[in-house]
């Protein structure tokens, strides 16, 4: 038996939508292939070699709307390079070292909206010919060497919504430099990663932004001085884990915010070593405040009430006790994030009691431990709909765990050890719960009653729990959750599945049983096989009889990869069905033979068996 693979290495573009959308990415091409239809509207030509764009380069593709030329070694763009492409709206030139842009480089596309010049070696705005860019909405100039944002007088402001200067080397901004931006409105201006040292006082005054991003700029005072009188929805002043933290944010600094109109403020990764009520004095109009990783140990109890604040991010800080966030100051909060707390977070008792409007609470990965979770801890959170307690230490659930949170829709306890003490379901009051994540929760045999009362449950993740004794999942378990559509039981050490285990689940659509010890592919345990997704990957299935397969009709998809499937005549029923139903197979590349040894590793699809009366003949077809 020999296995021969013929290669046809004439690389062709991939068709996404016939006659309209193509990708020629990384095919080593030096020109636009002739076979692309004239009607092509979307072309990804990234990672090829063009060197110079001339008027003939794209002349045949008159219907082009979007053109991606990322990293095509383009150095020269001559006049009229896009002159035939009057419908072109998007040109991406990321990663081409542009040595020359002709005045008429962008002549032709009269509605050019998006121009991406990231990492093109630009040193000044004047390098870009503006004459044909009047309709521009997005201009991306990130990761260049621009020192000054002196806009030329014909800079397109009419439709401009997004202007990105991130990671340039802009150090100074004068009022004159950006005066032209007064003609824009709702602009997103990104100056992230520029080491801005000087902004003229009030340079940004009377300009109306949607978002202003000075991320990673160390000297917040300088920026706030320049922003006096500015209006913006989002003000992003945060720093980053991989950047110098810069100077301490002082009370005085933040007073500059009193004269800036902003709804959302981000100050992540700055230092707040001395925090006081005064710190928040000018922040009372905020709707969203992000103080992720700002070295906070507490928020002062005497903060003036921030009545309009709806969303507060306090993740990656150093709180000891949940009460230290002084939640009473934020009575209208709907979203609260205290993830990845560096200390073991003590939830206390009623620390969030005043947050009666809180809908979303994230306390994940904060070393939370509770021996009587969580009625006292979450007292008063009657509006709570989404609770994340995943990646914590250990929760002991006695009786009803979330008594006051009866409106919970999503509950995530993944990777937190969950222990229940009595044979009544701790979640039995959560009649509205739709999604429950119990993966890696070490729940074991308590699965018998833990689903009690969850009649709305839609998605259940039980991955990584040990159900080694397969009998745990008897037909009573899932009878409690009749509306389940998605069930994850991967990596549960399941040796087999009881015949009636899933019988009550008439709406089941997606079942993941991968990474177990199953030896049989038993489709007959599901009551509805019309359009189901069954993942049996990484089990121990060798042979699948025909009747298990033929019932899989319609849009069903199965995954049998990484099973020790036999490619012998004992399994001819699978092999025959497989070839005829390749559209129902996921991961066919990894669905290979284990037996006979001569075929080990060969993909099932390429195996042709002739099983005669007495002899078995094996034929391998060659790939076209």
């Amino acid at each position, binding site marked *: 038996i020999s296995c021969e*693979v013929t*290669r*046809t*290495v004439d*690389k*062709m*573009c*991939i*068709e996404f939508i*016939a006659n309209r959308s193509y990708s020629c990415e*990384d095919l080593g091409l030096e020109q636009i292939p002739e076979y692309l239809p004239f009607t092509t509207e979307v072309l990804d030509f*990234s*990672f090829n070699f063009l060197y110079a764009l001339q008027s003939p380069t794209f002349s045949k593709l008159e219907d082009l709307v979007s053109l991606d030329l*990322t*990293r095509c070694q383009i150095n020269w763009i001559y006049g009229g390079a896009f002159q035939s492409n009057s419908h072109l709206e998007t040109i*991406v030139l*990321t*990663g081409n070292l542009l040595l020359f842009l002709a005045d008429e480089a962008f002549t032709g596309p009269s509605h050019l909206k998006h121009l*991406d010049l*990231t*990492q093109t070696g630009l040193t000044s705005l004047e390098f870009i010919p503006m004459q044909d860019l009047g309709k521009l909405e997005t201009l991306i100039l*990130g*990761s260049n060497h621009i020192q000054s944002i002196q806009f030329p007088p014909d800079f397109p402001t009419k439709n401009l919504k997004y202007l990105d200067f991130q990671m340039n080397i802009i150090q100074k901004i004068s009022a004159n430099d950006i005066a032209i931006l007064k003609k824009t409105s709702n602009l997103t201006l990104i100056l*992230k*990663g520029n080491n801005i040292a000087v902004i003229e006082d009030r340079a940004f005054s009377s300009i109306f932004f949607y978002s202003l991003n000075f*991320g*990673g700029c160390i000297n917040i005072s300088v920026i706030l001085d320049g922003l006096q009188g500015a209006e913006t929805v989002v003000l992003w002043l945060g720093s*980053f*884990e*991989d*950047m110098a933290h810069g100077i301490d944010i002082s009370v005085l600094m933040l007073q500059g915010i009193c004269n800036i109109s902003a709804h959302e403020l981000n100050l*992540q*990764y700055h230092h707040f070593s001395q925090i006081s009520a005064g710190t928040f004095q000018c922040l009372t109009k905020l709707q969203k405040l992000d103080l*992720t*990783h700002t070295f906070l140990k507490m928020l002062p109890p005497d903060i003036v009430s921030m009545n309009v604040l709806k969303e507060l991010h306090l993740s990656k800080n150093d709180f000891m006790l949940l009460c230290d966030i002084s939640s009473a100051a934020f009575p209208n909060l709907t979203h609260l994030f205290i993830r990845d707390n560096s200390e073991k977070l003590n939830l206390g008792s009623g620390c969030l009691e005043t947050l009666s409007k809180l809908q979303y609470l994230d306390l994940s990965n904060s070393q939370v431990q509770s021996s009587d979770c969580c009625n006292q801890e979450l007292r008063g959170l009657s509006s709570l709909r989404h609770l994340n307690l995943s990646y914590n230490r250990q929760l002991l659930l006695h009786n009803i765990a979330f008594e006051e949170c009866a409106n919970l829709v999503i509950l995530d306890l993944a990777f937190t050890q969950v222990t229940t003490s009595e044979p009544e379901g701790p979640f039995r009051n959560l009649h509205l719960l739709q999604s429950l994540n119990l993966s890696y929760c070490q729940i074991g045999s308590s699965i018998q009653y833990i689903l009690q009362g969850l009649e709305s449950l839609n998605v259940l993740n039980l991955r990584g729990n040990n159900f080694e004794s397969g009998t745990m999942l008897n037909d009573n378990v899932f009878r409690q959750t009749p509306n389940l559509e998605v069930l994850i039981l991967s990596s549960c050490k399941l040796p087999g599945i009881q015949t009636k285990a899933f019988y009550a689940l008439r709406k089941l659509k997606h079942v993941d049983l991968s990474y177990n010890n199953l030896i049989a592919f038993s489709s007959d345990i599901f009551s509805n096989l019309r359009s189901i997704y069954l993942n049996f990957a990484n089990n121990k299935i060798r042979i699948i009889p025909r009747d298990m397969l033929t019932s899989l009709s319609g849009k069903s998809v199965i995954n049998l990869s990484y099973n020790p499937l036999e490619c012998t005549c004992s399994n001819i029923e699978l092999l025959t069905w497989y070839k005829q139903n390749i559209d129902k197979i996921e991961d066919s*590349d990894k669905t290979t033979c284990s037996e006979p040894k001569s075929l080990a590793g060969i993909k099932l699809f390429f195996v042709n068996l002739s099983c005669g009366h007495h002899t078995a003949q094996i034929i391998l077809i060659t*790939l*076209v």
Partner: protein
Amino acid sequence: MKTFKAAPLIFLLIYTSIGWPTHSVCKNSHLEIYYISCDPLQDFAFTLDSCSGLTTGSVNIRAATVLRHSIRELFVTVNLFFNGKSIPIFSRQLCEQNHPNLSFCGKKKGEHVYYEGPVSFRSYDIPHGDFNVTVELFNGDQHTIVCTNFTILSR
């Protein structure tokens, strides 16, 4: 148009047949480290100032790549291959969709990412023996950003 659909298949063949060169990372009397890119699309650029830093918990590195996919979300996993088994030893989300923790989060396809400087980590003793460590970075769409297979010969 039949020919168009053959492309992904061919692609796969190239992956399995064209290998990237093996690069030396460091070498001293106790330790030799090599790496090879396991990204089908490109080689990976990486150097380390010395082997000895690995046991003290701080090394200077240079690393660079050109992104083939954007990294609004970015994950890293480190797996140890030992006696034919893959043992996960580290896994972390480096970039979150709306919470860029690192300055390079959100970079796009085609951008060059470069890091040069110190990296510190929990210091540990490298056990004796020959083993492989695979470092894989992938984005929210499960696309490989960097895949590197380190071969460690420790005496």
